């Protein structure tokens, strides 16, 4: 259905789809609380959430101490990665831009590794530091991750001003990521095997490690990053025409570049600090939203990405738990299985690539 003046999607269709996504998110959230190595009946899970004691007190503990923080983390991380991916795709005018593909997550990883090493040099208990006990280490690690993200973002942005080619930019982003990754490896060779194990496990990506004590820092960062993103929705639309046209429409481009740099770094950096580098969500979700809502309007895409990002993230985490078994998959294995086909679809669908 078309709007009265021919705008893409009608408001009714948009609201309906957003409501459906919110419903999906709520359903996945409940299932995420119920399913795991121990299955809790949905009824009990929902009841426990609103304060009714569960039939088995162990269920209450599992729910409140393990599953609820894990599901909340999945929601926050998924939303944050999807939004930063959307921002980056518009900012770089590149459909394959994303926090992982352009090396922003690797920058965050490097930041974390440096923070950990600095912590070790200062005599901190390293595995404890990475487990983020204490607000000081949390802010330290999150801050270093954000700084690492921002550093890579600034490098890519500086290059993007000189290089028009999408492919070259993407490869450069990958290379910055590789360099950051290599530096992490170098740092690791100076660590004890126990530290390496902790770091490697963190590198698989996981939502399980975030405790209630850490939640405020993660949630605060995601809220701040999202608020900036929402504030930028209108100029992001103008940016679809490129920087020159955006400026001719009165967009303060320098301020916009800084705001988007801050937003993407905070979102991608904070999530990486607490969950490890999570691949593909940031890249794939914006494309799914564009296809679903058939629009390029960021005022619609931003809420859509927040909701669908959270849902896909929860779904991936659910699948990685292999419900009913004692085993678990690395989160990144699942997100890659979901995300890679989307990327391939995007590549195949582009009829006329800009880079000849």
């Amino acid at each position, binding site marked *: 259905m078309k709007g009265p003046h021919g705008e893409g999607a009608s408001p009714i269709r948009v609201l309906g789809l957003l409501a459906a996504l919110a419903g999906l998110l709520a359903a996945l959230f409940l299932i995420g609380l119920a399913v795991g190595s121990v299955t809790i009946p949905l009824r009990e899970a929902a009841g426990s959430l609103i304060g009714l004691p569960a039939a088995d007190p162990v269920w209450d503990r599992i729910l409140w101490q393990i599953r609820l923080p894990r599901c909340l983390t999945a929601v926050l991380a998924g939303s944050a990665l999807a939004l930063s991916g959307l921002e980056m795709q518009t900012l770089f005018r590149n459909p394959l831009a994303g926090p992982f593909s352009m090396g922003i997550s690797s920058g965050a990883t490097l930041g974390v590794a440096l923070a950990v090493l600095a912590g070790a040099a200062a005599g901190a208990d390293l595995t404890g530091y990475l487990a983020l006990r204490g607000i000081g280490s949390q802010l330290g690690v999150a801050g270093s991750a954000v700084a690492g993200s921002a550093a890579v973002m600034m490098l890519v942005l500086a290059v993007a001003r000189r290089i028009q080619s999408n492919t070259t930019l993407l490869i450069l982003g990958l290379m910055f990521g590789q360099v950051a990754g290599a530096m992490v490896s170098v740092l690791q060779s100076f660590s004890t095997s126990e530290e390496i194990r902790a770091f490697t496990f963190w590198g698989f990506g996981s939502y399980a490690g975030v405790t209630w004590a850490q939640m405020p820092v993660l949630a605060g960062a995601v809220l701040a990053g999202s608020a900036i993103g929402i504030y930028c929705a209108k100029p992001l639309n103008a940016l679809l*025409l490129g920087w020159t046209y955006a400026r001719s429409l009165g967009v303060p481009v320098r301020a916009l570049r800084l705001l988007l740099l801050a937003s993407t770094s905070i979102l991608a950096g904070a999530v990486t600090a607490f969950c490890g580098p999570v691949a593909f969500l940031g890249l794939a979700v914006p494309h799914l939203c564009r296809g679903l809502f058939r629009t*390029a309007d960021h005022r619609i895409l931003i809420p859509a990405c927040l909701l669908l990002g959270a849902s896909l993230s929860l779904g991936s985490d659910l699948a990685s738990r292999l419900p009913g078994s004692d085993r678990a998959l690395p989160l990144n294995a699942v997100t890659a299985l979901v995300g890679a086909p989307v990327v391939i679809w995007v590549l195949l669908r582009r009829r006329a690539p800009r880079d000849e």
Partner: protein
Amino acid sequence: MNPVEPTLSPAAAAPILRTENLSVGYRAARSADRGGDRRVLSGLDLDLHPGELVCLLGPNGAGKSTLLRTLAGLQAPLEGRLLLDGRDASTLSAEAWARRTAIVLTERIEAGNLSVFALAALGRHPHTGWSGRMSEADRTAVRRGLEDAGAWDLRHRVFDELSDGEKQRVMLARALAQEPALLLLDEPTAFLDLPRRVETMRILRVLARERGRAILLSTHDLDLALRAADRIWLVPPGGPVRTGLPEDLALAGAFGSVFDQGDVAFDLATGQFRIHGHPLRTAALSGDAVLVFWTARALERLGYASAGIGDTGMEGRGNVRVTATRRNGIPEWECRLPEAGDGHPESFPSLETLSARLRRRDP
């Protein structure tokens, strides 16, 4: 279209745009190094009135785009003042500037899955509030922009799937949705075929006349510009810019001094470029007027200037006389070559055979 009140003679109204001793170009990378500024055009005193269509002409690299970008606020002037609507433009915010001027650039854009309507609606950006929510008046402006640019029928289409000509019209619609008093276009006809070029100029003329917009466009389409423009701003490499009615500039020999280069020359008699420099020989043409016109063109390509019968200077060795007539509606050419003596003229069924014969004369 709702015609606004017909504009008075353009010069009577206050100018939309006025420049005072304006210099445009690129700043040196370091501010300490002021001497290193690259001045492209300087000392510009120009003005542009509502309802006026002005074409910016000049060879590549003369600074047409730089001037347009400066007027659009995309780059700062190096020197001098720029007045928009009587206000010093340097005091305007980016949004206030964007409410007065809109620009259509040469760069081709990819807009993802943006629909034509949504793209044109981006023109409302400087008029809407923080959230970008559009009022009924905003929608009407978008609709009128699409209609005026002849793109209303495309409104449901995806921009990236349009042809070059359609994209150009949509970009124009977006600029019109901005409701600018001053509309700037950088080579809007560059990628279009001839009918589309003429159509684009027609649309722009109507916009200037009926909507009272001031329109400035750069173009390489000299012929079209001479016919459509109210005034020409002629930019020779290195300046100074000359302004005036197209005809006055032509009669003053201004185009020749700017564009003549090698074998290409502006021909005052036809108002077009001649590709073959100064012809060495003449062909005296007579007969059917239409046939003579096209014969002159074909012979010009071979290096013959055309002349009427009776013109002087027919004694030269290389000169020929050609008579083109229709016999029972079928064209026929008779050609008298001096080297053939005073015998019967040779006759030819087509310009192709005539050209072949004349080519054989060449040493």
